[in-house]
């Protein structure tokens, strides 16, 4: 006669389910590149330019108010100042990156910046519509003026966009939220 205890193999099963849920949720866009933080070919300190020197965002990203594309400063734009503002400060300390910048300029090469903020190619994001509607740069890009190196703050996934279009953001904006607003 058998009188045995038989444990159920429930735990591996539950673990498998949990793993599947994680995979599915990751696949469904729950994860994002939030916190993306990659080294750039040369260190560009936004705080120095924006806060110390009080440069406007649109000085360099000149097209953000008139084009879907915000625009990147040409190397010549950088060199407008850095032809005189050299790699050494008057006190002798270094301005990191300026030497590299001047190197690029001398070689006649553009700077291969690494893209941080990226929506998929099937998303049409007209910067000017947002800028002119009063959405600040920081709403999407975070407090760039405080970032020694730019990192991705917002998730940039679709739900994040939609919350704002539905008027659920703070301050509230309200816009179209049908698909062809962004996807075509």
């Amino acid at each position: 006669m058998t009188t045995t205890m038989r444990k159920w193999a429930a735990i591996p099963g539950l673990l498998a389910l949990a793993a599947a849920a994680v995979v599915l949720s990751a696949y469904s866009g729950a994860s994002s590149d939030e916190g993306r933080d990659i080294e750039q070919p040369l260190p560009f300190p936004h705080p120095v330019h924006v806060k110390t020197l009080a440069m406007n965002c649109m000085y360099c990203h000149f097209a953000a108010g008139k084009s879907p594309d915000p625009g990147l400063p040409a190397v010549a734009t950088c060199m407008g100042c850095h032809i005189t503002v050299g790699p050494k400060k008057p006190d002798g300390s270094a301005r990191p990156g300026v030497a590299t910048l001047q190197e690029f300029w001398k070689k006649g090469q553009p700077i291969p910046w690494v893209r941080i903020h990226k929506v998929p190619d099937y998303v049409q994001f007209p910067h000017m519509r947002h800028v002119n509607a009063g959405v600040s740069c920081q709403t999407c890009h975070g407090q760039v003026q405080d970032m020694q190196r730019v990192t991705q703050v917002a998730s940039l996934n679709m739900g994040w966009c939609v919350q704002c279009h539905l008027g659920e953001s703070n301050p509230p904006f309200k816009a179209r939220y049908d698909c062809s607003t962004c996807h075509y």
Partner: protein
Amino acid sequence: MSPSKEPNGVTRSGGTRREFLKILGATTATTAAIGCSSDRVERLIPYLNHPDETVPGVSTYYATTCRECAVACGLIAETRDGRTIKLEGNPAHPLNRGALCARGQAALQGLYNPDRYRGPMLRRNNRLEPVTWDQALQTLSQKLGEVRSAGRAGDSVFINGSETGSFPAFLDQWLAGFGMPAHLSYDALADISVVAANRQSFGVSWPALRFSEAKLIVSVGADFLDGWGATVPQQLDFADARAKIEGAPRLVYIGSRRSLTGLNADEWIPCKPGSELAIVNALSGAAGASLDQAAQAAGVPAATLERLGREWADTRPSLMLSGVTTSDAMAVALAVNALNNAAGNVGVTIRPAEGISAFDTVSSPAEIAEALARMNDGRVPLLMVRNANPIFTLPRSGKFAEAIAKVAFKVSFSSYPDETSELCDLVLPDHHPLESWGDAQATTSVMSLQQPTMDPVFSTRATADVLITLAKGNQTTAAQYPAADYRSWLIGRYEGGASAFAKALETAVIDRAAPAVRPLRTLATVTAPTPLESQAGDFFLTVYPSAVLGDRGANKPWLQELPDPVSKICWQSWVEVHPTTAARLDVDPGELLTLESATGLKLTAPAYIYPGIRQDTVAMMFGQGHRSSRAGTDALTHRGYPEGTVLEGYGRYAAGVGVNPLDLLPAGFESASGALAWTSIKVRVTKEGGYQQLVTTEGSARQHGRGIGRALILTPTGLRDADAPEHEATPPVTAGDPPATHGAEAAAEAGVHHFPGDASHEFLPGLRAPVAQDAEGGLADTEANDKGMYDPKHSSGMANRRWAMTIDLARCTGCSACVTACYAENNIPTVGAAYQTKRAVVEPTPGGNIHRGREMAWLRLERYYEGGENGAYEFDTRFVPMLCQHCGNAPCEPVCPVYATYHSPDGLNVQVYNRCVGTRYCSNNCPYKVRYFNWFGYGEPNRPQYAWPEPLNWQLNPDVNVRGKGVMEKCTFCVQRIREAENRASLEHRAVQPDEFTVACAQACPSRAITFGDAASPDWAVSRQVNDRRAYHVFEELNTFTAVVYLKKVNHLAPGQTTAAPATEGAHGGGN
């Protein structure tokens, strides 16, 4: 898109205004964009120096001139971030007034052709190998010196593709500097007989034709809507004429084969080839010309000719055109000119004073042939060819390839490998016209300027600049060329200098009288073919040039993929036979027929059964059949070229496609003008036994009474439904009546037949405007629910618009320019290239994907026949541009499980590619069958089926997604243009203005048949059109409430005729 593979030889110089941005800014939506964003590191590459005028992501527009055919229409080239992405007609240009044909639009695919020469090539060890420009120029300079010092420069030949403007004179000046004779100006497609006759009759080579002034147009074989003469201006004018409805001209077409013009004609008189002169003489009542004899010669009833004669005599003003290509073509043309003169049409419908200059400089093919014959004698030391391909465009029986091979040194300035450049010893690839400076004489009083729209794609050089460089290197000629380059030379000749020149470039149109016409040489040596009637053979052979491909379109996938407007066949050659003939020969469509000429030349091509051709005639199209002229000898090296490049023949898209009917023809020329006699032989036709599936987009050529393309007949009492049987015809529609009063109720009262789907009381003029009402089936309490964006009161205001389109079938000629415009605007992949069919078990076949109906044309041109069952010659043709109808109640929408298609508040039926999972249910449920599926990864660069091999992909519209494998796509009403207009308006703090913008097809349409706009606002042109008395919806009975409204075609009866020849209701016997 990563900037990975730069094509070999891209210019790297920076700083110029149109510097090509190898590496773009942030607007990079041109890759296949389906799927999750990847984690790979993507680079953002800024400019080194920012170009002054451009804003990244915003298009810049350059006005320039189209050089795809002789006509020189005006272009507006849209350029984004350094790349030209779209060509449109220049509205300021007097010829094309903003419209542009398919060939003109496809110039972009010449610019970005992946098989272009990437740099100069020099023959070494019997192979063309890449060399540097210095080497190439040095070689040519040396050869020029040798020829000159040998005293044989006078025997050299320069063949230049016919063009007007400053270059011909510039070239002749240069040639003279080197002691060489003036160049030959070659245009294979120009109707030289007519040009010669016009010069003789009117003193201009091509008078302006005013169709809109005429009440009767008789075309004797002139396909003036599709390739003959200056197509786009003629088409614009003809469409305006036909749009008048009452008082519009009747069009009669006389010819052995119904061309596109023939299909648009109200009456077709199918005469035997070669009998046209007799007919014209009979109509003119010339001495000794009897109607009966002419009728017998032509094989048509004498009564028909008699009636036409009476009509011609009674109708003023009228217009008769000749476009025959037989060996007595010039005689016909002269007789027609005389007839017009006698009828008082000159100065009214034919205006020599406003001539078109396109053919002012052209030489006759006979002159080219004669030069080639001299080469055969070994008398030519140096041959230079630019923008011409005589080997392909002249009959093979003339043995011109062999002749050219005997020239000691042959130089080609061709941008693309072709049959002629393949034979050359040195290739100095020219810039594409979109990369170079120039000008062209548009009309006798207007000149059109040409400017580069972007930096050169490859390491090519403008021939003019090459010539200047060569001249500067020569002591005797250097002094003549103070200008640094051709641009400076052009500006130097421009009154007002550089600043005025720059100002003129804004429209690129300036007033300048045309220089003297260059005379045609008459040549005694030319062989004229024997008259057709006396030849042996079963069938007349009519060879006609393809209006879509021309003589140089075969390497452009857009043009290859564009179905021929008449036969609807693409990527193929075919033999047109009449249904009765086909039955007699026991031939089914696609069965191979062999044509054999009396001299034993043979050609095999699949049969296409066409009711619009005489029973005793077969016809073939010229334009396909490019093949390497060095086949079997050596392959050109591909060193430095990416994989897949085809430098043999005419590139990858033309390779293995079709046959060249010129292989059958003798090298016979019309003796008076030197024109090539295209219709000059009879052939024996035998069934070969093989089969080659037709690459056609046609399903059934008959509409089976379904009322897709509808027509009215203009009777003396008003307009009458063309498709209703006589005894139950609907009451005539008179001008000004809105359709509602003639709907089902009125018809029921009158006890008459209600045509299914006919305009009825359910037809809502102006369409159902706010979609929000549709949203709840029109029944919802508008107060009750917050319908969000669909609420007209929503802050976005979208629901107050209803984007809609009208297509006027009375204007539409079926030319298909809209189709190519759609391809260009919307990044539609072409799928017919042989390489795109290559898979594990499938042989590469041109058009293989289209065999299975997988063409992707969002907008297709349907061509239905009405009448003419049982092989009768009398039938009516309905051209119906069919695109997504953006139904108010779209059947495709509710079946999509994932909202990939839905109705936007402004009335668009939206397709969201990135949401589509590919169930294809929407297509099943679409009655119009206008949804297209990506069966393969046409948009994915790493797939074998990729439709845009580098650099074709540079053309892709960055505002439009490239669709990946497995998703549905369809017409979007150019939503990107709508958004762009909205964005622009929002930047300027205003609303979108009426008719501020239009969609790509409407923009291009040379018939102005398409109108797009907001039907909910009375200020837009479209909202007037939708209330036209001729308006109808296709399949209205399905209650789809389409946003596309068609206006019925109008047929014109001959005087005294009471019924249209075709009686069609319920007739569906002849379809396949």
